[in-house]
């Protein structure tokens, strides 16, 4: 029987991979993809808890549906922001996006 811990460990690994990609990538689109990875890891957590701790009412599945909705909106707005920054700076390098830094 698959234990709850397996799913939680897998979600933790996916989340850590997402954080690594988020911090180290220099391409903006790859940063967006890493955020999607992290959101998916959270979703897997929600679904695992829903199945093992509260299987009869399926509340975790409702939460996962909401997270999927918000993630879709986030991807659309994020890509629009990336496009507009790309038009301004003519690059997709994260290190060049320091308009507010110094």
């Amino acid at each position, binding site marked *: 029987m698959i234990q709850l811990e397996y799913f939680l460990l897998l979600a933790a690994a996916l989340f*850590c991979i997402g*954080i690594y990609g988020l911090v180290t990538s220099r391409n903006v689109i790859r940063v967006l993809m890493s955020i999607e990875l992290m959101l998916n890891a959270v979703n897997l957590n929600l679904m695992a808890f829903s199945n093992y701790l509260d299987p009869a009412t399926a509340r975790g599945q409702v939460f996962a549906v909401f997270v*999927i909705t918000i993630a879709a909106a986030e991807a659309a707005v994020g890509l629009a922001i990336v496009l507009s920054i790309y038009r301004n700076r003519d690059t997709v390098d994260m290190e060049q996006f320091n308009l507010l830094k110094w």
Partner: protein
Amino acid sequence: MTLAEGVQLVSFGLLAAMMIGTALGVVLLSNIVYSAFLLGGVFISMAGMYLLLNAGFVAAAQVLVYVGAVNVLILFGIMLVNKQEDFKVIPRAWIGKLATAVVCVGLFALLSTMVIGTPWALSTETAAGDGATVLIGMHLFSDYLLPFELASVLLLMALVGAIILARREYIPDEPAETAVSDALTLPERPRDLVPAGKSDVD
């Protein structure tokens, strides 16, 4: 899900290997187009995990929304900003990468000790199974009605905001005489058209 336990275990192992492998590919590959397609692999294996967790509806929603919409949107974004550029080399960038890797491995170790050490209060009720779809619908229209409506408003706001952000900014040369007829149109800078069928390497 009525599968034999061995089948469940094997499919979990396959899906987990596929998920971790494709996720590492997303983060580590240098070609961004390969990364985008591998991201689709992560989403597909995630949908398989949802099926193993007795959630057929969310698995279908995952395939429809993530693979069908988000991944395609990201591919479109890559095609729109497809600039082959070699990033300027930052001196001592490996220190940052190493520090990030150490932090991520540490976080994973912390989470795993927590996950393994915690006595989870496992429920003995039977899972809703295929009836979960009906249950989700009941939840959405009774006790989660307000978040549901808020999500719909948020999606509308994201739609309008994305259009406003992604349009070309328009700076009028002369102060526009207040035309009533185009009061509802969104002014946009005219684009310089690229001749069709012409490659950009000439």
